[in-house]
């Protein structure tokens, strides 16, 4: 009875083990193959849609005295929509090179840009953008309009712009104009006459 179990059982047992090892190896190889393929496909979003390359010209609108003035700036060609938004806002925060009183707040930094599902571009700025702003109502309006126009001119696919300060909604920058809604409705018009 023992003999029949011994060599005969071993003969059946060995191919089963080999089969199981090969089966498990096949599953593992398949898993790694498909994961690798999926990882290659995943990042093809807007962030990597365009190759970075030579310089490009963007137009930035600065508030100077009682008007907006456009300046051309050379920036490395942004590879994506968000990179384009970052480059535009960073150029805006540098302020104008033209002579004249401008009120882009000194020391303000861009903390981030986020693309909302509703087409709204969220621009997160450091507190200096609010704290160092000393302007009247028209100055505050022109600052917001300049930023809005700059973004919509240079960044494709933006429906509206909303400003955040230190990652949070802020009611107002200078105490005149509300930031609680996206800028489009707020900055669409001005009329100043003597």
């Amino acid at each position, binding site marked *: 009875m023992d003999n029949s179990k011994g060599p005969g059982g071993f003969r059946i047992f060995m191919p089963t083990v080999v089969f199981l090892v090969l089966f498990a190896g096949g599953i593992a190889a398949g898993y790694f193959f498909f994961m690798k393929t999926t990882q290659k496909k995943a990042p093809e979003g807007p962030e990597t849609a365009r190759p970075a390359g030579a310089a490009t010209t963007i137009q930035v609108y600065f508030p100077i005295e009682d008007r907006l003035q456009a300046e051309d700036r050379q920036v490395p060609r942004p590879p994506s929509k968000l990179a384009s938004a970052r480059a535009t806002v960073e150029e805006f925060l540098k302020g104008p090179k033209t002579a004249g009183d401008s*009120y882009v707040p000194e020391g303000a930094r861009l903390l981030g840009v986020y693309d909302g599902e509703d087409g709204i571009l969220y621009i997160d700025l450091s507190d200096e953008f609010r704290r160092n702003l*000393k*302007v*009247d*109502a*028209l*100055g505050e*309006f022109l600052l917001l309009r300049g930023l809005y126009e700059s973004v919509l001119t240079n960044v494709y696919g933006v429906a509206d712009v909303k400003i955040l300060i230190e990652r949070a909604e802020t*009611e*107002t920058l200078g*105490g*005149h*104009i*509300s930031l609680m809604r996206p800028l489009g*409705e*707020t*900055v*669409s*018009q*001005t*009329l*100043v*006459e*003597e």
Partner: protein
Amino acid sequence: MRRFFAGFIVFFLVLMPVTALARGLDTVVLDPGHGGYDFGVNSGDSREKEITLSIAKKLKSFLREEGRKVFLTREVDRYLSLADRRDRIAASSADLFMSLHLSDSESAMIYVTWYKETEADLSLGEYYDIDSRQRRYLYESRVFAGIVGEALGTEFGVTVYYGELPLPVLSATGAPAVLVELPSRGVDYNAETMLRFAYALGIGMQAYGQQ
């Protein structure tokens, strides 16, 4: 004695309605801009938040002598959010509203609010929104702005510009409403100057009330 009473009756029947309440402007709300950590712009060594509060208090005294009820959105140096200001204005049942600020120039600016959409484009919810309250007073607000500007120009000889901006404190006001920016440059805001500004603004309100 008879003469005294006759004079008294003439004053109440003729002069009071003409001088103070011709448009039914019983309640005036003044909004001194900025406050607390929000300094506004500087005029020399003075800050906008202090200048606007001082002028608003002087104007309040002037208007109370004229027989009007006057409320200030802030009576002390403290920060008020735009939402707080709007709530206070809404609670006061204002017949006339003026927000006081400084311009960043030698000129005075007077603003009325601006709306992107016409009434016909509004949904029912938007029509009754707090920000729609000013819609039906826009014409009156422009008239008010013109009269106040004339009073400032006459008293100080400054250039006055008029404009329309989306200003929440105005759009939430259910009464003629303007935001006045007095010049911050070329003016020494001492007690006498501030009294003169208060007087000029008061004359403007009085003239508007009499129209």
